[in-house]
Structures are given as structure tokens and as C-alpha cells.
């Protein structure tokens, strides 16, 4: 057992706390201390050497209460590590690997990994070729993602970011992907809500929730995304594809700023420390698509960042945009208009997702994007009350139907085949004579039928998967679309 006395006996180095702040202590002595090394205080708390100067060292203390001045401290000769293992699947843990629910007995895994490691080099990385489904039709069809992509989820608070992330986790967990939800400085209530969602959807055995709660020490919150990434790397090395959600890095940056300012480091823009870009870039660089002995495995990372009043030009926001492979923007105005999800496809970007799509999906993506742009333009001048031609009316009607199709509550996730099938039905004009409300009702019936009827699922898959282009799909829909629906007992 590594008690203070044992460590002192082993390292023969001692230090004394000379100054103490919240989550930080300055210690003198410890001549051999290295940056990142763990230290142990005689009162049992542990800390990590952050900065080392000639006479003293700054220690990030993983304790809620400040260390008393004069407290003795010794080295451990170890860096901060996280126990890693499959035992964590289905658990709610803190950034040190302990269960948050301390009442249950739990044996920590024996394997440990350092939480702060260098990202893998270029030789280990592979081109992103596999698509990542989110189950949200708007994202899958317009802003597609790939496995191993780092996609920023950005938007004001309460615009449905977390719901989208939970839907994505649900979709991916059902496909056997290991999902890690890193809650950074969140309220216990929010974390519990996420846990309840996973349990209700029966995917908890594929999910690990790593939570650094809002009342945890600054240092614990600071290391939490690194610890979550370490766990993701463990599963990746085991041969599993991993999806990691970091909710959110804005909070992380704020806590890091607090630590830096307490440490009297020179403040940079918006008082953030000068190395905030480096810190986040080093973290996100650990995600990607990697070639290994047991094949190619991916860590897909969805970092979240909050905006204030829709301002996406903030310091942390633009930093993260530049280090990710695109962003999904949740628009507060669209949210106010009742759009769910409130994703603004014109301000969202995906840099690698399209390369993972097959020809059919790519064509649909292209068609939809140009159609939505056209519709946006037409809507703008239709406002003037000008007499509209039949073509314009049709465009607006199809636009409304597409909007109704993209309107998706957080409880619903759609398989990619169903998304394409429904889009093709709309594009073909099956609901041409119906209002968006009637269309919505029909869509709901189809979705329910898809979830319950295997035959219908097979028919949809057969129709969609064999098509090479949108034209052949529309021809097929024209021939057998209504029949497939009729066979499934759906009246449209």
C-alpha cells in the first residue's frame, strides 16, 4: 500500500506546503519532482505537479478543501493514471475511475494508463471511410459524419445539443459501438438524466458515463476529458469503435482559466491561458481513425461548445472549430421557430463525412443542399407577396414537407435506410396533395411500423440498398413505394 510513510521511505524526498489555494498548493522541497508527477500529502490527498520552479512547485490538488500550510508532501514517481477495463461499461464513474455511486462494491480494474499521453502519429492514422449514423435525419442526410471524425457540436444553451448527442449515442450503442459520455462540470441532475435515458433505452451496457460534477475540485474537472479519452483509447486498442462525447469544452476552458489565473499565469485573450489552444488540440488529436494489429478502429469525438446569443465567433468556439473536422450548429432562432433539431444546415460544416457516403447518399446530399438553398432564396422573395408560379408553389410545398420530415423529437431515431426511403417518397411526390401536418402523421405511422415490423424493415432495406443513384431509387419508389407501405398496413 502506498502510504505517505512508504512513499517517503522509497523516494527519500520531502516537501512542505508553503501556500495553498482552492485546488492548488505550492510546495517547497522535492528536488527530483517532474512535471505531471503525482505527489501525496501526509493528510492523504494527492496532487499533480503542474509547474516547477527553482524554489517551489505548483501542485494541482485533487481535493475539495485546501491543503493546510506546512503539510508535508512526498513524490510518488508516478504520473496521473486511470484504471481501465471493460468493467466500466454500464457504470457512472469519476475521472479517477471510482464509481460515483460509492455504496456499491466495485473492484477497480488492474490495468492503468496515464491520462496525459501524446496523440498517435500520422503513421498510425487511416483515412476515414466508414459512415457514422446519428439517427437524426437532418444530420445524416445533410451534414454526414464519419467514424473517427471530430465534429464540434455548437449552439446556445437549451437548443437541443444534449438531446442530439443522446440520440447519437443511442444509435451508435445499438450498433455495438462503445460510447463514452464525458460530463464536464455538469450538475448531478443532468448526469442522472443522461443515465436514465441510457437505462430506459437499454443501452447502458455499451455506455460509460464519466462525470466531473460542478462541485468537484477544479483540478478534477480539468483532467476529466483527458481521462475520458484515455478510456476511449483503451477500448480502441481492444478493437472496439468508440464514440466519445465531451459535454462541454467551454466549461472545461473556463475551469482551466480559473486554475491558470489562480496560478498567476499571464492571461491571454479573454483571460484564458496562452496554452488553451494547445490543451484542447492535444486532447482532440487523440481521436481519429487508427490502423492496428486487429484492424482499423476509430475514436469518433463529438466535443460540445456553448455559444452566447448565437455568437459563434467566440475565442474557444473558433479555436475548437479550427481543430475539428466540422461543426453542427444549433440555431437559437430555429429553435424558437419550433424546429427540432434546431440544426442550421447552412452554418454547419462537415469536412470528412461526405467521403464516407455511397453514391446514392452523396447524390441525395447534393440534391437536398441545393434544393434547400433554392427554397431559402424563394422564401425570401415570396415574403413580398408576389404572385407565385406553380413551380415556386411546388418548391415551397416540397420545402415544407422536407422540413416536416426533418422535424424529429428526441425520442425518435431513424435508421439510415428508412431516412432515404422516406426522403425518396417525399421527393417522388407521394404526399404532394397533403399538408405538412398530414404528412407528419403519416411519417409517424411509418416510423412506428418500421420499428415493429421486420418484413417492412427488410422491404425498405431491399429497396434502398440495391440502388446506385437517386434516379433509380425514385423509379423504384414509383414502381413499388406505395405497395411496400400498403403491405406494411400503412395508408398514405
Amino acid at each position, binding site marked *: 500500500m502506498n502510504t505517505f510513510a512508504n512513499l*517517503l*521511505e522509497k*523516494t*527519500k*524526498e*520531502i*516537501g512542505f506546503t508553503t501556500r495553498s489555494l482552492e485546488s492548488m498548493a505550492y510546495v*517547497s*522541497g*522535492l*528536488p527530483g519532482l517532474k512535471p505531471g508527477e503525482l505527489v501525496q500529502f501526509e493528510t492523504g490527498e494527492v496532487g499533480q505537479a503542474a509547474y516547477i520552479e527553482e524554489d517551489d512547485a505548483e501542485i494541482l490538488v485533487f481535493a475539495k478543501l485546501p491543503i493546510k500550510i506546512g503539510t508535508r508532501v*512526498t513524490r510518488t514517481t508516478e504520473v496521473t493514471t486511470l484504471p481501465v477495463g471493460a468493467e466500466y461499461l454500464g457504470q457512472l464513474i469519476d475521472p479517477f475511475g471510482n464509481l460515483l455511486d460509492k455504496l456499491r462494491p466495485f473492484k477497480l480494474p488492474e490495468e492503468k494508463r496515464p491520462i496525459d499521453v501524446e496523440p498517435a502519429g500520422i503513421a498510425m492514422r487511416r483515412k476515414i471511410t466508414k459512415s457514422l449514423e446519428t439517427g437524426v435525419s437532418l444530420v445524416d442526410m445533410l451534414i454526414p459524419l464519419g467514424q473517427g471524425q471530430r465534429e464540434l457540436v455548437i449552439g446556445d444553451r437549451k437548443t437541443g445539443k444534449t438531446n442530439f448527442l443522446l440520440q447519437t449515442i443511442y444509435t451508435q450503442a445499438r450498433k455495438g459501438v462503445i460510447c463514452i459520455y464525458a460530463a464536464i462540470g455538469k450538475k448531478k441532475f443532468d448526469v442522472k438524466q443522461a443515465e436514465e435515458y441510457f437505462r430506459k433505452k437499454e443501452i447502458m451496457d455499451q455506455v460509460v458515463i464519466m462525470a466531473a460534477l460542478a462541485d468537484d475540485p477544479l483540478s478534477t474537472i480539468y483532467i476529466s476529458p483527458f481521462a475520458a479519452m484515455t478510456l476511449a483509447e483503451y477500448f480502441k486498442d481492444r478493437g472496439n469503435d468508440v464514440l466519445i462525447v465531451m459535454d462541454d469544452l467551454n466549461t472545461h476552458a473556463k475551469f482551466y482559466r480559473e486554475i491558470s489565473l489562480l496560478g498567476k499565469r499571464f492571461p491571454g485573450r479573454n483571460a484564458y491561458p496562452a496554452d488553451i489552444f494547445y490543451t484542447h488540440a492535444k486532447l482532440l488529436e487523440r481521436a481519429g481513425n487508427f490502423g492496428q494489429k486487429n484492424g482499423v478502429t476509430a475514436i469518433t469525438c463529438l466535443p460540445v461548445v456553448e455559444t452566447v446569443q448565437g455568437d459563434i465567433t467566440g475565442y474557444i468556439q473558433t479555436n475548437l472549430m479550427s481543430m475539428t473536422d466540422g461543426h453542427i450548429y444549433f440555431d437559437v432562432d430555429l429553435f424558437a421557430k419550433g424546429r427540432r433539431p434546431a440544426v442550421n444546415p447552412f452554418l454547419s460544416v462537415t469536412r470528412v463525412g461526405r467521403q464516407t457516403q455511397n453514391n446514392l447518399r452523396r447524390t441525395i446530399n447534393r440534391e437536398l443542399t441545393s434544393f434547400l438553398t433554392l427554397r431559402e432564396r424563394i422564401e425570401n422573395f415570396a415574403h413580398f407577396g408576389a404572385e407565385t408560379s406553380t413551380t415556386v408553389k411546388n418548391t415551397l410545398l416540397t420545402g415544407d414537407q422536407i422540413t416536416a420530415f426533418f422535424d424529429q423529437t428526441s425520442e425518435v431515431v431513424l435508421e439510415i435506410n428508412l431516412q432515404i426511403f422516406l426522403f425518396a417518397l417525399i421527393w417522388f411526390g407521394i404526399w404532394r396533395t397533403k399538408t405538412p401536418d398530414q404528412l407528419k402523421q403519416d411519417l409517424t405511422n411509418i416510423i412506428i411500423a418500421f420499428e415493429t415490423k421486420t418484413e417492412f424493415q427488410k422491404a425498405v432495406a431491399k429497396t434502398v440498398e440495391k440502388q446506385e443513384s437517386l434516379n433509380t431509387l425514385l423509379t423504384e419508389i414509383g414502381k413499388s413505394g406505395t405497395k411496400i407501405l400498403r403491405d406494411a398496413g400503412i395508408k398514405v
Partner: protein
Amino acid sequence: MENQQDPGIAILKTIASTEDASYYIEQIDRFLQSMYQTDRTSILTVLEEMLPENISRDIKEYLISSKIDVTHQEQVRYALGTLQDTIRKAKVVSLTIAFPASKRIVEKIASQVKESFGSNLLVEISINQELVGGAVIIYKGNYIDLSVKRKVDILFDAKKEEILKFLA
């Protein structure tokens, strides 16, 4: 070239422990507060009257070797402030022993420590009876345990089985 030593360091050599250093600093403070009396008489006379003989002698030598004009109050004040700083900043060797030591023993220990680690150090003595005998030395963050307790612990760990058998 002549090897000129800092006069402050020379004084440090004569101070054994942190306790002595505090006393020294306190005496200098006392003198500084009495400097107003030098209006009537010379600084050196006040120094001799106010402070213990050994301290006043050391300070006098310090002032002379620092080439301070002893008729100039401000110069003396500044020089003694610097001396106080030198004493305050001196490196400390912390020594924990098992029994309260007499002044003579502390001086003996201090001279041995100064011989081993350097003469411009101060020794801080603390007592911990659990050590039984010997000492624990802490210097520049290095921890050297030369106590009887540790020797006994090592012996106990090595011969645990035999000892427990014997006690049973």
C-alpha cells in the same frame, strides 16, 4: 586574488540554529528601534549598551568589514536590514531528534551539520519521541531517516515471522 567573503555569511557561520537566528534578528530589531538614541551618543556605544556582547561584537565587525560609515544612521540601518534578510533566507537543515537537547548538544550537532552540508546553514531542531534515538534529517527536500525507529522497523519486517513466533 584575495578571497573576500560576504560579511553576512560570516555572521551566519556563528549562528547555530533557527532559534538562535530568530533571537539574532530580534536583537537587531531592538537595536534599530533604539537608533534614535544615537542623537546623544555614537552608534557603536548604543550597540554595545543594548545588545549582548557576542552579538554586538559580531555586528560591529560586520559593519566595519562592510565598509559602512558608522556615523551615518541610514547606512547602518540599511546594512542591518540586509543582514536580517541574509539570516532569514539562510538554508535550513531540519533535524528531528528523539529527546530535548541542551544548548551545548545543539551547538555540537550544528557544528557537525555545518561541517557536512556547509557552514552558512541553520539547523532547525524538533523533537519526536517516537524516533527512540538517532535523527531524521531534511535538507533541500531530501529526507534522510537515521532513526532507531526505522532500524527497528526494518529489523521487524525482515524477521517478522521469528519475532511473532518468539512472542507467541
